[in-house]
């Protein structure tokens, strides 16, 4: 499945949600986790990820710190209280939106 055309509007929320869940993450880690958790359906490119991370850091939704890892420095991101609030509101918005889509396309949950 090509997720590119759908992912753009959700990227910020995905990044904030994952960092909120994991506590602390770095760029490469985020790309891998998204791919793993979505069973390969969602892929985030580096060109899309880093500008979003820096934007969220500027908006004080994320805070970053450099730490040593494997003999080199690594930039870790954590959620700020502002970012935490955004995660809460975006979860509600997302549910509403998905419900709307489900109605619009008359989608049925996949039967097991």
């Amino acid at each position, binding site marked *: 499945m090509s997720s590119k055309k759908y992912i753009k509007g959700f990227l910020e929320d995905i990044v904030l949600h994952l960092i909120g869940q994991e506590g602390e993450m*770095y*760029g*490469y880690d985020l790309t891998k986790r998204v791919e793993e958790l979505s069973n390969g359906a969602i892929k985030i*490119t*580096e*060109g899309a990820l*880093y*500008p979003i991370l*820096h*934007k969220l*850091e*500027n908006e004080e939704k994320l805070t970053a710190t*450099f*730490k*040593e*890892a*494997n*003999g*080199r*420095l*690594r*930039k870790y991101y954590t959620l700020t209280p502002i970012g935490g609030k955004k995660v809460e509101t975006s979860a509600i918005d997302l549910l509403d939106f998905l419900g709307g889509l489900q109605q619009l396309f008359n989608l049925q949950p996949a039967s097991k």
Partner: protein
Amino acid sequence: MSTERKIGPKELAYLHSYCKKKDIVYIDLRIELVDHLAELIQARWAEHPNEDFKTAFHNVYKSFGIFGFLTIAEQHQAAMQKRYWRGIWQFFKGWLTPPKVLATASIFSLLYLLVSRVDGANNAVMIAAGLVFITSIFLTIWQYQSNKNILHREKNMLMGGSKQGLFWFGYIMWLITFNSGPTAREHMIELPWFTAAFFITICLFTAANYGLLKKAKKELLLLKEKLAVSG
């Protein structure tokens, strides 16, 4: 026993120099991208254990698309500017405390009275504002160069923002005072409140810009300390 191949110091140095050549000039962004590339290469080595470093590197670099780091570097510039102006805005917001507002209002009133009642005071205050701005340029250059001496001539995002921010601020001030059309210019400069506000704005901006360069210095010192620990 784990036999995973890891990126060594020489390879890390190569990645740093490659990123620098590709316009990733700010050390904070470069550290992040070098780490990402190193992780990608190590993941590739897990699947192709016999591949040499350069082949693995060129293979993973392809994943950044035909524009390579260009998109990241460009968007980083935009983020850098936003961060800078946010810093300036926070300085001005922080200025809104009763003692500082009172002091600023007093200086404004004094300048206003001076300009409206003393002949030639207007020009003197405008020249003083110009001198403060020139001082601000020298202060920025000096602090910028001094910051570059901290970490082998490296610069960080906030330093880049300060340099560009000062240029834009100077340009806007220039437009307001000298390029707003002869009638408008004469009108603006003749207004005592404008002269007083102009002087105060330039002084506050100089302080805000210098403060951000000092913050950039702190960030670089912290990075230097961490780089020393990581070897």
